[in-house]
């Protein structure tokens, strides 16, 4: 319902003593996102994955066995069982249940994906914001540093970080987080540079705002959509990077289940027991796909131009 206005404020005052509830931006976003079937599918898959990861993690904390088998329990007598009713995805070379291991691996992949993105996002946004707002020499120094990092393939850079930091899950997270800082810094800097020239930012300065408040209150909220989209897509590449490091044997150390690590260890059996590779591969693909679908959907939902239609 559109209330009608009059240019005479007195009439308006009489007509409407009520206060309208602000239209939530999140609600508008959700309405648009809902129309994009692929994004909804992505969101649905991510929801399931998150549920699995959370259940596995909580049951582990409480010391309960919720998975069909202990994912790390090796029983050489049961190695290379083909998928059947007891072992849905079969067993690996050490006789561990693949289904349990893949569910267990969800936890690690999502955890690494989210935390690595959180690291690169925080540092990247700060760098990008400083570079854009300060400009001049600060800008040059920060952005050239970012360019140097971008010039090296990210997986090589991650391996180099791992070499310096050592093996292990925590180090993998840091390495993956560090290598994608430049992407966020660049994207944030670009959006801030365009938003900064808007008159409402000028108005904020004229009314006496301090620089930090202008950035937090007037600039960042208007570039947040770009950052959210980038972060969602970033999770998918972080998941992929984790798998790559695991495949190279640099990520999570045995016996913990990690999809890339599982792929790496099974690659000798690609012909004799293909199911030991296929299922982790599918798990990685589905996760990456889900985040990509959601990211693309969000990009459309957050773009005011597409919202009009």
């Amino acid at each position: 319902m559109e209330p009608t206005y009059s240019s005479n404020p007195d009439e308006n005052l009489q007509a409407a003593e009520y206060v309208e509830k602000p239209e939530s931006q999140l609600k508008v976003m959700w309405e648009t996102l809902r129309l994009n079937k692929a994004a909804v599918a992505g969101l649905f898959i991510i929801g399931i994955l998150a549920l699995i990861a959370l259940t596995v993690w909580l049951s582990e904390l409480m010391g309960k066995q919720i998975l069909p088998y202990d994912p790390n329990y090796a029983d050489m007598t049961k190695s290379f069982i083909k998928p059947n009713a007891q072992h849905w995805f079969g067993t690996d070379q050490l006789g561990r249940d693949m289904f349990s291991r893949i569910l267990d691996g969800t936890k690690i992949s999502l955890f690494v994906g989210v935390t690595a993105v959180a690291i690169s996002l925080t540092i990247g946004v700060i760098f990008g914001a400083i570079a854009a707002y300060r400009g001049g020499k600060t800008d040059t120094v920060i952005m050239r540093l970012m360019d140097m990092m971008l010039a090296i393939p990210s997986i090589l850079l991650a391996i180099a970080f791992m070499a310096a930091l050592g093996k292990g899950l925590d180090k993998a997270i840091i390495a993956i987080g560090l290598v994608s800082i430049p992407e966020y810094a660049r994207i944030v800097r670009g959006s801030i540079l365009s938003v900064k020239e808007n008159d409402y930012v000028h108005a904020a300065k004229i009314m006496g705002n301090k620089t930090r408040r202008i950035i937090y209150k007037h600039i960042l909220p208007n570039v947040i959509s770009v950052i959210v989209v980038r972060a969602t897509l970033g999770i998918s590449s972080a998941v992929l990077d984790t798998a790559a490091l695991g495949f190279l044997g640099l990520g999570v150390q045995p016996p913990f289940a990690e999809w890339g690590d599982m792929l790496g260890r099974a690659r000798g059996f690609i012909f004799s027991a293909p199911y030991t590779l296929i299922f982790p591969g599918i798990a990685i693909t589905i996760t990456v796909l889900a985040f990509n679908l959601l990211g693309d959907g969000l990009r459309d939902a957050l773009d005011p131009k597409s919202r009009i239609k």
Partner: protein
Amino acid sequence: MLLEVKNLTTEFKLKRGIVKAVDDISFTIDKGEILAIVGESGSGKSVTSLSIMGLLQNPGRVTGGQILYKSQDLNKLSRKEQQKLRGNQISMIFQEPMTSLNPVWRIKDQIMESIMLHMKLSKKEALARTIEMLETVGIPSAAQRANDYPHQMSGGMRQRVMTAMALACEPELLIADEPTTALDVTIQAQILELLYRMREKFHMAVMLITHDLGVVSEAADRVIVMYCGKIMEEADVRSLFNHPLHPYTIGLLKSIPQIDNDSDEPLYMIKGMVPNPLNMPKGCPFSDRCEQSMERCTQEMPQLREIDGHKVRCFLYDAKEGGSGKQ
């Protein structure tokens, strides 16, 4: 009669409803005449020109009426025939010349392309014609400037190039959509003078779309005032400015700050704002802003009626004629 628009209706199908951007309008343009269509944003003046040019974008669509150019219905022609007509016999210039010129092409290439396409000239002849046209629209050292890219020119120069491009094939009808809005006043004067001169030289008709009544008064022979997709008033320029009939036209004329008015009184204001196109008043679209609004105005739509060659859509003039108003 060069162009006759009969009961044209253009609709935009939006998710929240159908907007009739142009609602059952009819008008004609004669050879060599400058017809101005004035209106504020949302009046449908630009949509009218896009409908004639066949440039409507989704979700806009012509849903009714005819556009007759020299008595042939444009919408009944094949795509190819339409294309031949538009661009050759009917040309258009836009408000922002930068967006309608291709930034990676030289000026001369853009003009030559349409000349070669429509006039079937050789490359050499087309180039000569291009330079001749650029000289006609007043671009100094045209032969050299023809090698420039659009971004190397100023706004006024770009609008001249656009005009040269539109006139290159000697169209019989030029549609100018806010040709001076993006320009400075001294440049605006130059471009208006150019349009006037070109009309004399090529005997073409001009459909001038603008929101600026000053431009209308300077340039037009006849004026149509549009509001919310409807024609509210139509008259020759003298009678419109000397004896405006519709309260909307009268209000618009009074609300413009004028250079030869020395009073310090507040400006006349039309109260309120243009209604939401999805939520139009039931009767006359201007009824909610009109000072002379009557009960009847909010209930039924007045018809466009002619009084001594001056058309107006308002119930005030039904009463004066003594007619019942129902037709």
